[in-house]
């Protein structure tokens, strides 16, 4: 038997029967905008975001992977997020609207 578990975030986005086509379109657009924003980041910022946000490594673990001090991890993360907030400001504003926020319930 193959032991495969799908993460909550993934299953929530791939299999979500309650989403209508408009919500799915908005969700796909959001994903594309996030992907593009991450690609725009300088490499040191681009690589640290997935380690923290998606793989959920601790600062100490990230420092080990990137071979840098924990202080550098913290400052890079702070700067990377600040840059992402700037790049994704419009997306964040839209996702804060009631219609979009409603579409994400259950995630």
């Amino acid at each position, binding site marked *: 038997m193959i032991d495969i578990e799908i993460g909550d975030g993934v299953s929530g986005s791939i299999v979500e029967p309650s989403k209508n086509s408009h919500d799915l379109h908005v969700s796909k657009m959001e994903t594309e905008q996030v992907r593009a924003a991450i690609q725009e980041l300088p490499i040191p910022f681009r690589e640290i*975001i997935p380690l923290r946000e998606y793989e959920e490594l601790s600062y100490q673990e990230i420092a*080990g992977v990137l071979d840098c001090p924990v202080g550098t991890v913290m400052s890079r993360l*702070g700067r990377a997020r600040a840059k992402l907030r700037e790049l994704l400001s419009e997306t964040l504003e839209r996702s804060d609207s009631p219609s979009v926020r409603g579409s994400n319930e259950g*995630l």
Partner: protein
Amino acid sequence: MKGCDYYGMNIQRYLDKELIGQDLEEFHAHLEECPTCRTQLEEEEALSGLLHRSRPLYSASDALRRRILQADSLPSTATGAPVRLGKRIAKMLERPFQSVKRPSWPVFVTAILLVAAGLLLAPGILRQSRANGYIETAIAAHRSFLGGSLPLEIQSESPSIVTAWFAGKVPFTFRLPNSAEELGHEQTYRLVGGRLVNYKSGYAALVAYQAQQQKISLLVSSSRSAAAAGGEEVPSGGIVFHYSKRASFNVITWSTHGLTYALVSSLPGSGRGSCLVCHQNMANGSHFSAHQ
């Protein structure tokens, strides 16, 4: 009393679950009475939520995967990352849609034993390990380049333009290798361009050539972080070239003037024979040098 400037810095640590004990309690207390920090926290949470929702279509870059996989294959102390961590991350990156269970104690104990064994390795073996890591990086970069996922950042046939482009971008003085035949013989290959690739905690230079309808990659890094060792050794012009065949690619590595080069190609011939495709005059005793 600590102000918002202090707690503002802690918002990130709180979000990342790095705030514990007294610090966490103080932060909670401050949030209760500070609308500014609450708003800032909500903004950070909104960004974090957006990033999480985008997760399915995101995958780590090839360069980052290589570095993590490499960290896993290197001796335990090379990156400071525990073996357990390296395996865990590598597994996660290979299968981004699956959750990963933490290794059991027997696995952990095995990992510790591997670390201990790694510490006992002789310097020569460590050097070979560094060399293998460099070759693996070079092959991975070559594959990505062939597959189109590593587009060139500078496109030029001019060695001086390519060299100038890398100046200041890589943590070493970049020099292209220079075959003696360039001085008087017709070249059967041409420089195409280059780009930066992640290597260890910095960057290495990836240089692209074209020969006989084939793409050739050259990875250049400082000899402090990369070694040339193993394979068939052929001394030429004061340089020892190491030839090996890896995963259907011909790989040639050498170190000179503080730099280590790894040339990856699918040119016909094995070992030294693949060099003769482009450098026929090597058979006559000519040799390579490096641009000074």
